[in-house]
């Protein structure tokens, strides 16, 4: 299929979204997290341009629906490997924007205390293993976590994100293959954002990756990555299937990276018409419209959420700027672990989980949906 | 590779335990399919063997008749062990009379391969003469550290390492040996220049400031009384300088236990090098003399033999970090010894320039008073007048003085690849008088040997 044409994408698979199990509150939360991701990344970019961010700057502008929608599905004891365009997933699990911003600026208040930069972080206390630069290495790590879940017969899911460029790499195939052989509870989220740095889809693969899933023995699902509820639904089905022992799913989310690969990239290789087309499909603006049109929100309610988020992010930025730079003496710390500590559980704001356990710590039994 | 029993003049071929797999070390015979006397075709299975990985048949390595079984079934042996012998020259149809007595198995005792013997071990003490590098003065870090800590003069220590190197155990043994000796005096050396008589050592008077040393005629026994001279005489008052020299020389002779050691030095290379460098230096206003070469070699040698750069003060030897080199300059009626301070820093050219400079100013009477103080070693060079040997008097409070005599072309023996031959080289004698209170003959000789070696191996461009 021609992946560059957005209208084709929209026609490909129109999901009838009925009975999506989201409450009004859930929808507000979804909107809030997408807005938080957008606002935080805009603020970070400003800080970068102000010279307060060392190294490189990456964001996922235009892809907010993917990370927020997918992460929303998870229970506290589920695990994630999050990539550089998925800030929303970190927020859903409980990382606050001030820690994100401090991390970009290399401050002690960042999630890794300065050891790592930009999006190479993950809060282990919230059940996240952060990324490495080599892609898609984390797909194998997620596969490994899923192996453990299966060996222990735990109804838990490992979710891993990667771009379409990663599907060219041997390790992606090794992960897909192993997950398929053993029917591991992995949810593979593939963000096809049209370009891997400057490389368009047609130079990255000969066959659309979603078509390849069945060759590894499990389903591939193609969704509109700029529709947060469509992403959510696909992820929900995949997670339920995995928990029930049904094995992995590959979800290819069609979306578009609205900024360059990094702030240093001016995207000259992107045709203007393409940008404009996807600009019209901005996930946040679309969802704002839907909230009002389909879900009974008032316009000023939606506006209030935007404003509250902006104010919150501004406050977080202030806090981040107050965080000190790390002590150089710590540079040689932590090469080795003295003892093993298990990963912690993340937040699970979806109402379905809070119905069963107010604390969101995954101790209650899971209600299985029919396969 | 050592020869295996199968490679011999006889015709027996061994069946060996194979290595069936990378980590297998041994195998066990299960059963033999051939008995002694049986005919065997090459590649035919002769026995069954089991290892902890697999069971396998062993094919015969050659055709012939089974001669002898060496390992019985049930026995476990290491990989490579001979299991049986096959007579590979037997013909089918011939009976093999007595397989057990067949002696094909004993390899002929091999003559050890002829080997050239290593050169006979070098004499323990002296530096090796025959081409082995002299390492007797190379001191490793631990040897230096131990020597420093115990105040050991490493030149006293016999080295048993390669090239005569002093090893850690040598210096430790030396120290242990010393602990027995009275008051930690060094071992008496085999060669002593002159008898040491402790009673003779009067408390040395510090020499008067500014006095000079002269390589003049040796002072000997007190002269006969003047009144006994025969014939008409003329009297002349001695100049101030003359009187000072007289005082200094006699004082020096009374203070120090004078000995003189002489080495002969071949100046062929120095002459060649001087030829190479002279013109360029002249253009820079520097006159390159043989004395400059000797001075440079001396300074280098002093750094390795610091005792010759010392002074005696009562019961102590005072070592000087710097070499302040006195150069004796002949004047109309006397001599003066200006001092080149910290001469160890100077290159050959620097040395030549410094010598010219002080000599010129000395003759012109333009030396500073400070410039005649503080010398630690003196060199004198009266050889321009043709004398070949001398026994100079030490310039107090130094412990040695080196005299460069005339450089004379002589026929010398030169050792070459095809034997010895005669060549004509510029030769000279380096005469050094030294104070037996501070040194012994061996010290003096070693020092001079170093100076000589430096001069004789001076690098020359090719």
């Amino acid at each position: 299929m021609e992946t560059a044409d957005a209208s084709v994408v929209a026609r490909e698979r129109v999901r009838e979204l009925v009975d999506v199990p989201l409450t009004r509150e859930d929808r507000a939360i979804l909107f809030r997290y997408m807005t938080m991701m957008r606002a935080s990344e805009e603020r970070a970019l400003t800080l970068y341009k102000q010279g307060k961010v060392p190294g490189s700057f990456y964001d996922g502008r235009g892809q907010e629906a993917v990370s927020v929608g997918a992460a929303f599905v998870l229970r506290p004891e589920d695990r994630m490997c999050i990539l550089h365009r998925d800030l929303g997933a970190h927020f859903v699990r409980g990382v606050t924007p001030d820690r994100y911003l401090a991390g970009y600026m290399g401050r002690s208040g960042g999630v890794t205390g300065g050891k790592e930069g930009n999006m190479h972080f993950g809060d282990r206390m919230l059940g996240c293993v952060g990324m490495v630069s080599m892609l898609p290495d984390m797909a194998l790590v997620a596969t490994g976590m899923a192996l453990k879940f299966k060996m222990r017969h735990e109804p838990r899911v490992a979710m891993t994100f990667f771009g379409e460029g990663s599907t060219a790499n041997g390790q992606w195939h090794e992960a897909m293959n192993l997950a398929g052989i053993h029917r591991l509870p992995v949810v593979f989220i593939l963000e096809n954002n049209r370009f891997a740095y400057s490389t368009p889809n047609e130079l990255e693969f000969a066959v659309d990756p979603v078509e390849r899933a069945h060759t590894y023995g499990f389903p591939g699902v193609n969704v509109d990555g700029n529709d947060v509820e469509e992403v959510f639904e696909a992820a929900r089905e995949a997670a339920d299937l995995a928990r029930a022992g049904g094995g992995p799913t590959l979800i290819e989310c069609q979306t578009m990276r609205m900024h360059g690969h990094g702030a240093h990239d001016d995207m000259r290789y992107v045709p203007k018409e393409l940008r404009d087309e996807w600009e019209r499909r901005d996930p946040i603006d679309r969802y704002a419209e839907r909230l009002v049109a389909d879900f009974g929100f008032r316009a000023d309610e939606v506006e209030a959420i935007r404003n509250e988020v902006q104010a919150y992010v501004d406050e977080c930025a202030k806090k981040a700027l107050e965080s000190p730079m790390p002590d150089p003496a710590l540079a040689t710390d932590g090469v080795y672990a003295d003892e093993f500590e298990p990963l912690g559980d993340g937040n699970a704001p979806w109402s379905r989980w809070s119905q069963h356990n107010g604390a969101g710590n995954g101790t209650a039994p899971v209600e299985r949906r029919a396969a | 590779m050592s020869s295996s029993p199968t490679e011999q003049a006889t015709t027996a071929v061994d069946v060996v335990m194979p290595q069936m797999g990378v980590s297998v070390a041994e195998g066990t015979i299960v059963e033999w399919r051939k008995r002694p006397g049986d005919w065997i075709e090459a590649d035919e299975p002769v026995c069954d063997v089991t290892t902890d990985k697999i069971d396998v048949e062993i094919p015969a390595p050659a055709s012939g008749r089974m001669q002898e079984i060496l390992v019985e079934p049930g026995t476990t042996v290491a990989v490579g062990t001979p299991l049986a012998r096959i007579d590979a020259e037997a013909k089918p149809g011939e009976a093999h009379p007595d397989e057990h007595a067949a002696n094909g198995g004993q390899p002929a005792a091999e003559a050890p391969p002829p080997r050239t013997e290593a050169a006979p071990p070098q004499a323990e003490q002296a530096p090796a003469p025959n081409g082995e590098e002299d390492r007797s003065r190379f001191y490793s870090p631990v040897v230096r550290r131990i020597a420093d800590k115990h105040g050991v003069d490493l030149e006293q220590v016999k080295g048993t390492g390669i090239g005569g190197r002093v090893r850690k155990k040598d210096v430790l043994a030396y120290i242990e040996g010393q602990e027995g000796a009275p008051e930690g005096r060094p071992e008496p050396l085999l060669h002593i220049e002159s008898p040491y008589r402790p009673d003779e050592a009067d408390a040395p008077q510090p020499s008067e400031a500014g006095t000079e040393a002269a390589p003049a005629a040796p002072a000997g026994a007190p002269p006969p009384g003047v009144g006994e001279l025969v014939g008409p005489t003329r009297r002349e008052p001695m100049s101030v300088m003359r009187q000072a020299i007289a005082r200094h020389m006699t004082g020096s002779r009374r203070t120090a236990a004078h000995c003189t050691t002489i080495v002969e030095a071949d100046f062929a290379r120095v002459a060649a090098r001087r030829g190479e460098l002279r013109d360029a230096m002249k253009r820079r206003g520097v006159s390159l003399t043989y004395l400059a070469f000797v001075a440079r070699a001396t300074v280098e040698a002093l750094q390795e033999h610091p005792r010759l750069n010392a002074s005696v003060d009562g019961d102590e030897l005072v070592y000087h970090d710097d070499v302040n080199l006195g150069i004796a300059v002949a004047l109309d009626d006397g001599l003066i010894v200006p001092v080149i301070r910290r001469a160890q820093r100077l290159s050959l050219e620097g040395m030549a320039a410094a010598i010219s400079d002080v000599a010129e100013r000395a003759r012109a009477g333009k030396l500073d008073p400070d410039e005649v103080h503080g010398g630690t070693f003196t060199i004198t060079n009266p050889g321009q007048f043709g004398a070949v040997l001398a026994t100079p008097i030490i310039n107090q409070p130094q412990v040695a003085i080196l005299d460069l005599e005339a450089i004379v072309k002589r026929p010398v023996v030169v050792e070459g690849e095809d034997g010895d031959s005669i060549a004509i080289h510029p030769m000279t004698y380096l005469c050094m008088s030294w104070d037996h209170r501070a040194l012994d003959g061996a010290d003096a000789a070693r020092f001079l040997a170093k100076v000589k070696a430096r001069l004789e191996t001076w690098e020359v461009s090719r």
Partner: protein
Amino acid sequence: MSAVEATGTAAAELASAPSGTREMTYLEAISDALRTEMRRDESVFCIGEDIGAFGGAFKVTDGFVEEFGADRCLDAPLAENAIIGTAVGAAVEGLKPVCEMQFADFISCGFDQLVNVAAKLHYRQGIAVPMVVRLPSGGGFSGGPFHSQNPEAWFVQAPGLKVVAPATASDAKGLLVSAIRDPNPVCYLEHKGLYRHIKDEVPEGEHAVPIGEARIARAGEEMTVVAYGSSVHLALRAGEELDEDIEVLDLRTLAPLDRQSILTSARKTGKVLVAHEATRSAGIGAEVAALVTEEAFEELDAPVRRLTAPDVPIPFSPPLEQSVLPQLDDMKEACRELLAY
């Protein structure tokens, strides 16, 4: 040959109530370590190629499927990055995977996961990765360039990994047990040539040898051979056959290096030869030589020397291979030279 116990260094061995010893080969000791730990701790499991039904290329896991089930002795597809990467994921979740690379040489196919993911997770994110990668290494049997390597130096160069290399059967068991219990990723170099050629009395039951401690295999005064793996045995034989007062220090752990034991021995004898079968340049020998020269210069009576393979891929044909891998005669000659210096 029997193992000489460590002297002088701090920690006693972690053995708790061993029930006696049994003679085992080096390979049997490795199996025994795995079995003991897998019985003691359910979270320990093995993953590698052909380790299940086939029992492993070298039969280390022979019988494991029968005892522990196919889940805990998992046959992996031909995918080293997958083996290692999956192990990382399982380890961060609390399992204790022991990966087997069929030959150490194939670690290059899993290098990325080992060096970039496993090694750095704790430093970057405080996440401990308690896993072991077993690496059958070493040559001497015409394995050729891809079945004979000793790649330990690559991993000593990757901060965050621990690297161990036992020489005796007793240490083969003890170090593997410690590696399994360590909360860090550990590369375990098992020398194939020692598998069946080395036997020891090995303690039964629980037996752990601390990581990071060298062992004096033979005490001496005149010179020290610092060695690990197969070279330890060469050094011991050389010492006996030369009948010289040679001290042999078996490093056992390469990262973190037991610097103190190396320096103590170097200061005692003043003469150090570092020996390993791995290639020369930038190998462990270079690291030990630099350490000794930096910290014990004033105690040295001779330059620090190395006996290693030259910088060549390991060739196949026996005369070529034997000329490349250090032999007993090479060891004896190197010792003689250093003693005479």
